[in-house]
C-alpha cells in the first residue's frame, strides 16, 4: 500500500529525515513514536506532500512520486487525495459548521452534488458519534468533538490511507478516549493508518507495527509487544523509560 524508499528531508542546513525506508501493507495500522524533533510530523507531512521531500521515493497504491527529480506539480493533488490528514490542533474551518466542514472537500474538490455530499457527511458525523451536532460551528464543540469532525472531514474524501499527527495530544485527558475509540473503529474496519502518538495503550491495542524514530531515522520496528516489552536498541529503551 505505502512504500517509502530512502526518504530525505532537509530544511536549509537542518537534516530532519535521513533516509527513511518503510512499508505499510493494506489494512495495517502503524504507530510511530519517538522523541520531540525526531521528524515524525515531517514524515507524515511528506506523505501527503505538505512538505516536499529533498530526495527519495514515496509510492501509495499505484502512484509513485520520485523526489530525486523535479516532481510535476500537477501530480501532487491526485497523490494527496490518496491520504487523509488529521492534525494535532484539528484545523477545522471555523467559518463552517461541522456538516459544511465535511462537505467542503467532496463538493469543491470532487464536484459531488450537494445533496449527496450532505447525506454522506451526515452519515460520517453519525459514525463519529456527532449526529446531533451537525449544525454546530467548531467554536461550539469541545476539542474531542472537533477532532472527531476532523477525522470525518478526512474520511469524506475516501482516502486509501489515514495519517494522524498526535491527534489527541491537544486534548484534555477525559476527551482522549472518545477520539481513540473512533480511531480503533476505523482500524477494525480495515483502514490503513499511520499514527504518530504518545498513547501507548492505543499502540498496544490497535497497532500492527510500532516504529521508533530518532534523529531522522527509523531506529527500531516491530510488533507492539516486542517494542514495548522487549526493545533491542538502547535508544528505544531509554525513550520508553522516559514516557512510561
Amino acid at each position, binding site marked *: 500500500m505505502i512504500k517509502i524508499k530512502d526518504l530525505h528531508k532537509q530544511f536549509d542546513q537542518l537534516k530532519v529525515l535521513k533516509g527513511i525506508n518503510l512499508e505499510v501493507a493494506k489494512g495495517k495500522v502503524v504507530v510511530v513514536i519517538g522523541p520531540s524533533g525526531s521528524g515524525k510530523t515531517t514524515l507524515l507531512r511528506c506523505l501527503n506532500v*505538505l512538505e516536499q521531500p529533498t530526495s527519495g521515493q514515496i509510492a501509495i497504491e499505484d502512484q509513485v512520486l520520485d523526489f530525486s527529480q523535479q516532481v510535476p506539480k500537477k501530480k501532487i493533488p491526485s497523490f*494527496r487525495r490518496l491520504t*487523509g490528514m488529521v*492534525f494535532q490542533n484539528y484545523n477545522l474551518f471555523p467559518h463552517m459548521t461541522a456538516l459544511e466542514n465535511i462537505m467542503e472537500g467532496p463538493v469543491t474538490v470532487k464536484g459531488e452534488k450537494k445533496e449527496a455530499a450532505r447525506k454522506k457527511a451526515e452519515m460520517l458525523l453519525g459514525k463519529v458519534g456527532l449526529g446531533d451536532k451537525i449544525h454546530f*460551528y467548531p467554536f*461550539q464543540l469541545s476539542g474531542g468533538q472537533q477532532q472527531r469532525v476532523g477525522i470525518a*472531514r*478526512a474520511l469524506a474524501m475516501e482516502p486509501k490511507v489515514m495519517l494522524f499527527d498526535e491527534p489527541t495530544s491537544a486534548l484534555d485527558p477525559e476527551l482522549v478516549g472518545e477520539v481513540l475509540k473512533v480511531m480503533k473503529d476505523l482500524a477494525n474496519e480495515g483502514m490503513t493508518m499511520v499514527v504518530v502518538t504518545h498513547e501507548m495503550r492505543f499502540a498496544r491495542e490497535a497497532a500492527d507495527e510500532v516504529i521508533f524514530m530518532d534523529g531522522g531515522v527509523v531506529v527500531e520496528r516491530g510488533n507492539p509487544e516486542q517494542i514495548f516489552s522487549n526493545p533491542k536498541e538502547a535508544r528505544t529503551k531509554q525513550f520508553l523509560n522516559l514516557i512510561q
Partner: protein
Amino acid sequence: MAKMFLSSIFLDPERVARLMEIGKNSFQPLLEGAIIYTIPLTLISFVCGLALAILTALARISGNKVLQTVARMYVSAVRGTPLLVQLFIIFYGLPTIGIIIDPFPSAIIGFSLNVGAYASEIIRAAILSIPKGQWEAGYSIGMSYPQTLKRIILPQASRVSIPPLSNTFISLVKDTSLASMILVTEMFRRAQEIAATNYEFLLLYMQAALIYWVICFLLSVVQGRIENRLDRYVSS
C-alpha cells in the same frame, strides 16, 4: 459684539426667512449631487478598488519576485503622493500627451487606484493573519491554491478586514469631495456653485457637511450589521 453677531443671524426675521428659503432650495440640488455623483462615485470606486486590492495583495504574497515588486511600487507610489495631485495628473495632466478622460471616469480611476493601494495592505495583513494550518487543511483535502484561497482563506480574512475596510470606505465618501476640483458636479461642487451666487458660504458648506455626515453614519450602521453577521462563527 457677540450679541450683535447672534442677533444679526437669528433675530432678524428677514434674514432668517432668507436663510430658510436658500436652505430649502439648495437642499434638492445638493442631495441630487450626492445621489447622482457622490454615492455612485464612492460605490464604483470602492468595488473596483477592492478588486484591485485583492489582486495586489495576492501579488504581494505570491512567490513571484516581479509581481511582488510591481505591487510594492504601486502601493508605495499611491500612498506617497497626495490624492489631489493624482486626480490632477489624470484629468489635467494626461491630456497633454493626448489622453483625454472625462471628469467622472477620471475620478473613478483616481479613487479606485487609491482604494486599491490602501485596501491591499489591509487585505494582505488579513490573509497573513489566518493560521498556516488553514491552508494545510485545505490542501490536505485535495484543494488547490485558488480553491483554498476562495473557500477557506478569503472568507476568514474578510471578517478580519471589515473594520479597517469600513474606515477606507468612509474616508472615500469624504474624499469624493476632491472630485469637485476636476469638474465633477458632485455634492460639494454644487454647494460651492450655489454659494458663489448668494454668498451664504456657511449655510451651504454646513448643509453639505451634514449630508456627508448622514451618509457616513448610515454606513457605520451597515458596518455593524455586517460585522455581526460575520461574527456568528466566533465565540463572543
